């Protein structure tokens, strides 16, 4: 399973949604009512653990983690930069 699929699957299972219907990869998941506080914390922990990356204070305050596309692009960039805690 590739990176995008992993993130997509996590969000779909955690938030009981199917991307492609009312909610798309570009949807703001907060505005769509998908993300709650518990789920958001779980999602951030998942990204850090699954991809062995560290989200910085600046990044967390940016408007990055609101859509599937945004999250996926962030993780892709982090992995490309090699900004990970340890190699896969």
């Amino acid at each position, binding site marked *: 399973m590739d990176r995008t699929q992993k993130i997509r699957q996590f969000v779909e299972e955690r938030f009981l949604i199917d991307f492609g219907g009312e909610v798309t990869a570009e949807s703001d998941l*907060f505005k769509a009512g998908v993300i*709650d506080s518990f789920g958001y*914390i779980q999602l951030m922990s998942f990204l850090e653990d699954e991809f062995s990356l560290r989200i910085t204070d600046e990044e967390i305050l940016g408007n990055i983690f609101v859509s599937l596309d945004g999250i996926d692009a962030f993780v892709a960039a982090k992995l490309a930069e090699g900004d990970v805690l340890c190699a896969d």
Partner: protein
Amino acid sequence: MCGLAGFVSPFLRADAAPGVITSMLSLIRHRGPDEAGYYLDDGLTMGAVRLAIVDLPSGAQPMADPSERHWICFNGELYNHVELREELRRLGRPFRTQSDTEVALQAWIQWGPACLTRFNGAFAMAIRDAVSGDLFLARDRYGKRPLFYADLRGEFLFASEMKAFRAYPGFRFELDPRELESIFAVWTPLPDRTPFKGIRQLPMGGFLTLRDGHHTLHTYEELEVAAPPFTGSEAEAAAYVRETLRESVELRLRSDVEVGVYLSGGLDSSIVTKLATDLSSHEVRTFSVAFEDKTFDESGNQHEVASYLGTRHSSITVSAADIAESFPSAVYHAEVPAFRTAFVPMYLLSRHASDAGIKTILSGEGADEAFLGYSLFRETLLRASWHELPEDERADKLAGLHPELAHFGPAHRKHLTGLFQQFSVERLPGLFSHELRYQNGLFATRLLKDRAEPFADALALVRMAPEYAALTPVQKAQWLEYKTLLAGYLLSTQGERMGLAHGVENRCPFLDPAVVRAAAAVNLRFDDGFDEKAILKKAFRGELPASSLTRPKQPYRAPGSAVFKEQRPDYLELLLSDAELAQLDCIDPAFAKRLVAKIMSTPDAEISTKEDQAFVYLLSTAVLNQQFVMNRESYMGAPSKARLNVRTIADRRVNRPAPLAVGGTL
């Protein structure tokens, strides 16, 4: 405390009216097991069931003034009836009883609707002017007592509980998907709404006049959460709060029957217990809910407070099996979908109190709204000042927000910062304070097939409220709490409806207008709001066990979806069976099945609050559908043991048909 019901119908056969009103009253007889009565004239039929608390022998209803022009059915209490009676007597109004019902009637005759702002109480009432033909309905300012109505094009029904309408010929309940959407999103019905098509509530602080078949609604008092700041010292403010509360409890101990106290173990009910013991000449009895599951149990604190204050304490220990067994009964009494199960133990507690011979209890409801007790208020203060605060202060304040929630712990502080950043700007105009909470509600709205704008009516409510826009963010949060969670769940589903299921009325000293005003004057004057209910703790320092004044608030909770997963009650089939689920027309079966499957297959610890809430919403809606829409008595839970004891019939029909079967007139 009582219940009332009635109708105006040009279509119903005159000889049917006594039978219909008797059946309607019978469906709410649990509210007033002591006696019942009804009044008929050529246009209106109305009646009451009575739980006798003040002036037991002569307070029977319906009650008339000496001229028999005005007739009243009254549900509730006027705590200041003694003072009002004196004032009215000086004005020449005649009195024949000692009851507060007569005070309400004479006040209405003297002052008209202006009487309502003079009332300090919990009430709903119906007054018939037999000369003008007007019907007047009113409800107390905080919505402590219920009053529902249905205007059916020429026919007008009203009752303390909607279930009374089941007895009206041809009346059919139908779930309203638009209202369900709003209820799921906001957690409760809006002040004038219900989950059923065509049925409305008379909003708190409102009155309704029915004249010539047309009804008009008015507001007699707007909710006030702002007040001029208290100008004295902090010590004087604490003394002011204490004295105001003492007076409030003293007023609410006025009763011809013993008054007990619901003791949760938290600060608010401990304060009420303390004042009740100070003001009572006898040993005060306290009643509590304990849980088998220690996660939810507060019995240690309850026993500590009871022992410290010397009350005669008793409690019930509630298990998952108890909640599963009584859920349908409690939902039947609640009449609205619920997002949590915590109301079910309160149904069991009122049964326990009733078995102990108690008809009236004091409770701590309203303290958190008035004195900023909920973490929601601290969260609002933090989010509203988010962009002005330095990083370390944000972190400090985040740390103290929800100490009871693991995901608000230190390990997730950075992630929480990201979350709060997202919720630091208002998205729903006027609803800023509740936007994070409403994310859980939005999730539940996905249960519905058709979703339009779940917050449209809530947005309209705050947009139309006079002065709302000028309130501070935390005052707006209070206003919303008073109008939704307090009236729509805590006072009703978890409060009044559960108490009255077993003939126990609740009185709320923190919901005295003077206490609400005092709180508004002192809030945030001497602290920044992050030390929970600081002024209240100062007001009772040295009078309660130290732990009551120092430990953080423990929200009253009960186990949710885990109960049904573990106990597998028969009615869970309403969700597990595709055929049963399909009976809920408005529910999206695909999402509902997915949610139910996840709940049933996932360890409890991994179920999020929003999923748990959505599940309880779905189950309670399915049960309500069976009870009210499909009229299946097998789902209505245990029938009330109360009997309908009709003692008063006032037949004022000019065109009276055959003689009535039941004897007795006023």
